[in-house]
């Protein structure tokens, strides 16, 4: 599934890299707020669901070739985070939903194909 379809279906708001959504294939997902955990256990092409907002999340996503980041619970990524994400080509999306709900919905979407 491409990231645009996923974002539209869940009503996610995109903060940067709109132009990449359609061409970005989401292969799976990972959820977590501990950066070393995400570093070790996420896979390339995963959509990453997190509550973290500071700019280090961009480094993690870009180093691991993740599909993009979904920031949950109405948290708003720092301006520096969005700037860096635009520069490095990492799509960041936000939602008011809690992590549990976002992860459940993404999981269902991806398993239905």
């Amino acid at each position, binding site marked *: 599934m491409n990231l645009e379809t996923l974002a539209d279906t869940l009503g996610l708001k995109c903060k940067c890299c709109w132009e990449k959504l359609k061409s970005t294939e989401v292969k799976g997902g990972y959820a977590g707020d*501990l*950066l070393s*955990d995400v570093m*070790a256990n996420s896979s390339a092409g995963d959509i990453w669901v997190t509550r973290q907002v500071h700019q*280090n999340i961009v480094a993690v996503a870009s*180093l691991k*070739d993740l599909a993009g980041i979904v920031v949950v619970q109405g948290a708003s990524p720092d301006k520096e985070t969005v700037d860096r994400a635009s520069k490095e080509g990492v799509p960041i999306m936000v939602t008011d939903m809690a992590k549990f709900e976002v992860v459940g919905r993404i999981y269902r979407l991806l398993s239905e194909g």
Partner: protein
Amino acid sequence: MSGDDFSESLEGIYHIQGRDFVDAGIVSSEVKKSLQGKGISESIIRRIAVITFEAEINIISYAEQGTIQLFIEPDAVIIEANDAGPGIADIDLALQEGYSTADDSIRELGFGAGMGLCNIKKFSDIFELTSLVGQGTYLRSIVKLNG
């Protein structure tokens, strides 16, 4: 392995300033870029990216300053991280998953799970960590390129 001299295959030296979380990850990105376009597989590049990131973050979190050096040999990539900092008194303890001395300011940023050194070890083929309390820490990670 400590005696091995890779100096002829030095690809880059990167300086890291302690406590500078704003620039965190920049050295790892540079290292990743240096590895691309050289016929190294994406999955190996990602392993090296994890190793470099965790080493970089530890220098930023715990040391005054440090350097990361990247060596590219025909059959392996070597990452060396050197810092001037407090050092690690008990290396076995530091290598236990979950052990962390990170303070609240570090934890707020999502670090401090006590997983970084374990990750480096897990993603390395050869891993070496030595330290002198009050002086600094030296880490070397070797990732083989052929299997």
